[in-house]
């Protein structure tokens, strides 16, 4: 699967140079260092209101299933005894919450939230997982600095190839 590119032209000139506007309209990804976070802000309290209206029907009242309840979507918050993987005990970067919710949630209306709504929901979920205080204001300058408990557990693939089962 390697082509002999020695006779290729330096450019085929297919396609067009992307304009800044074209890029900005879709380049919504956020890096763990906060690059890409938009202006705006949010609080757990406002997030809670939005969460109840737009998220709770699938993810449970507080991001948790009541006893015996089977949710159609993953639980999002955990207490210390929970074995279920949630933001609190499994997510290594707070920026991922903002990025994911903005692109994919609510499941039935993805891309419908304003940046402020996403900041608020992110703040609410972090608070519900006891990671931030219930009155913290979240924005582009502090979200990426939040220390996530699971961060220290993550290691890049340590399989080494070859005969070893790992």
């Amino acid at each position, binding site marked *: 699967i390697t082509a002999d590119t020695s006779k290729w032209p330096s450019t085929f000139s297919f396609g067009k*140079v992307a304009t800044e506007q074209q890029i900005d309209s879709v380049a919504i*990804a956020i890096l763990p260092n906060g690059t890409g976070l938009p202006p705006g802000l949010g609080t757990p309290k406002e997030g809670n209101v939005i969460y109840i209206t737009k998220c709770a029907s699938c993810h449970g009242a507080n991001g948790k299933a009541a006893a015996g309840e089977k949710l159609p979507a993953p639980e999002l918050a955990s207490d210390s005894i929970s074995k279920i993987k949630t*933001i609190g005990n499994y997510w290594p970067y707070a920026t991922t919450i903002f990025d994911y919710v903005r692109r994919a949630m609510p499941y039935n209306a*993805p891309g419908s939230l304003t940046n402020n709504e996403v900041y608020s929901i992110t703040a609410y979920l972090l608070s519900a997982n006891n990671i931030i205080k219930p009155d913290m204001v979240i924005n582009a300058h502090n979200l990426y600095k939040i220390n996530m408990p699971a961060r220290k*557990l*993550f*290691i890049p693939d340590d399989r080494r190839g070859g*005969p070893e*089962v*790992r």
Partner: protein
Amino acid sequence: LQSSLTKWVQTAGAQTLIKNGDPTKITGAGPSTVGKRSLFEKPVRLTSDTSSRTPLQDLYGTITPSDLHYERHHAGVPVIDPDKYELLIHGMVGKPMVFKLSDLKRFPSVTRTCFLECSGNFRTSKETMTPQEICGLTSQSEWTGVMLSTLFREVGVEPKATWFLAEGSDAALLTRSIPVKKGWDDAMIVYAQNGEAIRPEQGYPARLLLPGWEGNTNVKWIRRVELSDQPFMTREETSKYTYPVKDKIRQFSFEMDARSIITYPAYPNQLERGWVEIRGIAWSGRGKIIKVEVSTDAGKSWNATNLQEPVLDKAHTYFRHLWQWRGDETEILSRAIDETNYIQPTLRQLIEARGISASGYHMNPITAWQIKRDGKVLFKPESFK
């Protein structure tokens, strides 16, 4: 008068429903624009809300019919107009560019056959499980498209770029971070599958193909590639597609380790005494399969099998082994060995290596089938928690 033959032929067309007539006495239906399966064959995928499994036990050879390719979606199958489709490549590049589908098709193209497998392709519970239920989240196609390296060359990827983000245009805007090295190595943007346009469930009109890497990284309906000097830590590479290994969580576990499964005889086959050709598929995300061994005595001894040529890199490889079954109760097993000399492990070996909290991701244990005295073939479930 020409039309009188046409009439006969068309009348005959209505007779396809006559299942019990002598086919040598009934003029058959004429040619059609698009063919259909025999009325007697109904292979189907097994569906859940978010996935469907290939009926491995119904298949022969190495190609998966495109309409039976496994599925795993995170927000369903989008409808994409190919004339509106665009792929943006930007970030750490000399020249950010937008390619229409017709642009992608103009570049030098490559065709290759390889498997795809969901890294969550592992189930074990009861004895009455088919290959499809145990292991149906893998399929194989012949893919055609443009090498990602060709596009990297065109946009001028900067040397400091070490990762790229691949983003789908489904309702999940699914994103994965991929090392740039894979992009230069054998990654492709493919627009064709098994000879024709890629199917909607496999990413129409174009998807990322990362031969040998976990299914989820092969981003479907790809709309954007962003070059960066670090991974983006998206939800799919943190909350999902990571797994506990002892006291750590393994991330960016891309390659699918070698695996195999016997697809015949398997549940629900009924075995007859005498000669049996044991058949199955083996594959590895790390290169070619060099050997598949089969045991017909519950793992005590192992026999080399015949591998169907051509054996391709990172591809389902069909294996066969002739065996005489005299009616004794036994277990039959297969294990794949790839060109890195990795030997497909047992479940016990995997748990030993990863600890008891091992999840269902990247589990590739040997699958055993129990042969009962009456010829019943049953899966041998193994508890794994």
